[in-house]
C-alpha cells in the first residue's frame, strides 16, 4: 500500500509537471493573443510524433527532444503568420479556426504515421528502488527537465527584454504600442513559444505514454481545465493547478474508479467557472478591474457582473 501510494504521488508529480508545461503554453497564448487554441493538443501530439520519427532516424532521444519542439515551433510560426494573424481580434472565430487546424493536423498524422499507437523506449533504462518497487529513473529525469524548462521560462519572462515586452503587452496592449513595442512580433513569438512548449512536453511525455494521432485530444481538455482553474493569464496558477489536479487524480484513482475522479474534477471545474471565472488562484480584483467606468481606455479585463461581451458580438454572421 505504501509503495502504491508513493508511486501514485511520484507519478502524479511527474505527470503534473508535464501538464504544467502544456498548460503554460496554452495560457501564454491566451494571455497575449486572447486565442483559445484548440490546436494546442494537436501540437503536443505533433511533438511526440516528430520525436518518434527523429528517434527512428537517429536513435537518439535527446536529439529528438531538441529538434522536435523547434520543428513544431516552426509550424506554429507558419500558423500564426499564415492564418491566425488576420482573425486575431475575433475570439470565437479563432476557436473555430484552431479547431479546424486541429482536425487537419490530426488527419495528417493519421495519414503518414498511421492509426496505431507506438511506444518510445525509455532512453534511460535505470531504475531505483521506491519502497518495494523499482521506479524508472527516467520519469524523475523528465520531471527535472520540466522544472528546468519552467525555470528557463521564468527567467525569460522576467530577465529578458522580450519577456518584459510580453508582460507589458498582456497588461496594457495599447500602451505597449504607444511605447514602441512591436506588438505583432510579440504575438508571433508568443505563439511560437506556446507551440514549442506544447511540443516539448509532447516529447517529454512520449516515453511514458503511447504515441498516436489522438493523444492530444484529451490532453487539450485537461490543459483547459488547468488553465481555467488556475486562472486565465495567471501562469504560476497553471503550474500549481496542474500538479495539484494530477496528484489528486493519481492518488484518487487508488481509492475510486478513475472515471469517477474525472467526473468530480469536471464538476469542480464547472463550479469554478460559475463562481470564480477569473480562476481560483488569481487575486479577486486586480487594479485594472477597479478602474472606474469613466476611463476611456479599453480595459483588457472585462467585468463579469456586466459583461460588455465583445466576444459574443464580434462573431456577427452579417457584415458590419
Amino acid at each position, binding site marked *: 500500500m505504501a509503495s502504491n501510494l508513493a508511486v501514485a504521488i511520484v507519478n502524479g508529480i511527474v505527470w503534473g509537471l508535464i501538464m504544467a508545461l502544456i498548460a503554460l503554453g496554452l495560457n501564454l497564448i491566451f494571455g497575449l493573443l486572447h486565442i483559445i487554441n484548440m490546436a494546442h493538443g494537436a501540437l503536443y501530439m505533433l511533438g511526440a510524433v516528430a520525436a518518434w520519427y527523429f528517434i527512428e532516424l537517429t536513435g537518439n532521444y535527446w536529439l529528438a527532444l531538441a529538434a522536435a519542439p523547434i520543428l513544431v515551433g516552426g509550424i506554429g510560426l507558419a500558423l500564426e503568420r499564415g492564418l491566425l494573424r488576420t482573425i486575431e481580434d475575433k475570439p470565437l472565430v479563432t476557436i473555430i479556426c484552431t479547431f479546424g487546424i486541429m482536425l487537419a493536423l490530426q488527419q495528417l498524422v493519421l495519414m503518414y504515421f498511421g492509426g496505431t499507437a507506438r511506444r518510445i523506449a525509455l532512453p534511460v533504462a535505470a531504475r531505483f528502488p521506491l519502497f518495494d518497487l523499482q521506479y524508472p529513473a527516467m520519469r524523475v529525469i523528465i520531471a527535472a527537465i520540466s522544472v528546468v524548462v519552467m525555470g528557463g521560462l521564468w527567467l525569460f519572462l522576467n530577465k529578458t527584454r522580450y519577456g518584459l515586452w510580453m508582460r507589458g503587452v498582456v497588461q496594457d496592449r495599447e500602451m505597449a504600442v504607444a511605447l514602441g513595442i512591436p506588438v505583432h512580433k510579440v504575438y508571433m513569438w508568443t505563439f511560437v513559444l506556446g507551440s514549442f512548449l506544447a511540443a516539448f512536453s509532447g516529447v517529454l511525455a512520449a516515453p511514458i505514454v503511447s504515441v498516436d494521432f489522438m493523444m492530444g485530444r484529451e490532453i487539450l481538455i485537461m490543459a483547459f481545465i488547468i488553465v481555467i482553474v488556475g486562472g486565465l493569464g495567471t501562469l504560476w496558477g497553471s503550474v500549481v493547478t496542474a500538479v495539484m489536479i494530477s496528484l489528486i487524480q493519481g492518488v484518487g484513482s487508488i481509492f475510486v474508479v478513475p472515471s469517477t475522479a474525472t467526473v468530480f474534477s469536471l464538476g469542480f471545474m464547472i463550479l469554478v467557472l460559475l463562481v470564480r471565472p477569473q480562476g481560483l488562484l488569481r487575486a479577486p*480584483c486586480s487594479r485594472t*478591474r*477597479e*478602474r*472606474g*467606468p*469613466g476611463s476611456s481606455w479599453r480595459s483588457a479585463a472585462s467585468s463579469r*457582473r*456586466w459583461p460588455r461581451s465583445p466576444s459574443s458580438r464580434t462573431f*456577427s*454572421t*452579417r*457584415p*458590419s
Partner: protein
Amino acid sequence: MAEGIGSGVILNLAKVSKSFGGLMAVNYVNLSVRKGELRALIGPNGAGKTTLLNLITGIHTATSGKVLFKGEDITRLSPDRISRKGISRTLQVTSLFPGLTVYDNVWAAVQSRKTFFNPFVRAERWADVREKTEAMLELTGLSGKAQTVCSELSYGDQRILEMGIALSTEPDLLLLDEPTAGLSTQESIGLVKRMRALLSGRTILLVEHDMGVVMELSDRITVLHYGEVLAEGSPSEIMESEEVRKVYLGT
C-alpha cells in the same frame, strides 16, 4: 431642495452611492426628477454621470442608498425588469443591433412590451406592433431608410435611431447619455432640432457635454463633480454659479 418629494416626482434617488474597489464613483447623491421635466446632468469627465445612469437602469447596483421609480424601490432589479417598469435609455457609445435593418431595430424594441412569443406565428402578423413601428419610423424621420442595414446608416442617423429605439418601449422616463457625442457642430444642431419633436412632453434625464444643447433643451440642471451633486438649479442659475465655473475653468 425646496420641491422635495412631491406628487410630481417620478424618479427619486436617495443617498445613492457606488464605489468601484476603493474609488467612490457616485457619492451620496440625492436627485429627484419631476414628471414632464427635462433635467440635464452635467459635470467634468469622471464626475460619475454615466455611472449614475447605470445605477438607475440596473447595470450597476448601488453600494448604498435607494433608487425609487414611481414610488417603487428599483435599486436591485435587473436591467430588463427596470426597462419593463418604464425606464428607457440611450448609451454614450451607440448601441444598436448592427446587423438588422432599421425597421427590425425598432420592431424589436416595440415588440419587447409584449409578453408571450408564439413561435408559430409570423412576426409580420402582429398588426399593432407593425403600426407602432411605422409610427416611430415616421416620428424619427427614418421611414425612407427602414430597410437599410443599421450598420450602414450615417452616424447621425444612428444616434436618432438609438433614441427611436429607446422611445419605442414607451417609457415614462427616458435617460439620454450624451446624444450629441461624436457629432460635428452642424450635425448636433440638426439632431437637437429633431430631438425637440421627439422629446416634447416626456420626462427626460439628459447627460450632455455640449452646453449649447443643455441650455437649449433643459428645464433644470444638476451639476455633478467627483461623484457628488455640486449644484442644482435653473439654467440661468447654473450659468451664474461661481462654484460651477470654478470646476469648469479650474480658476
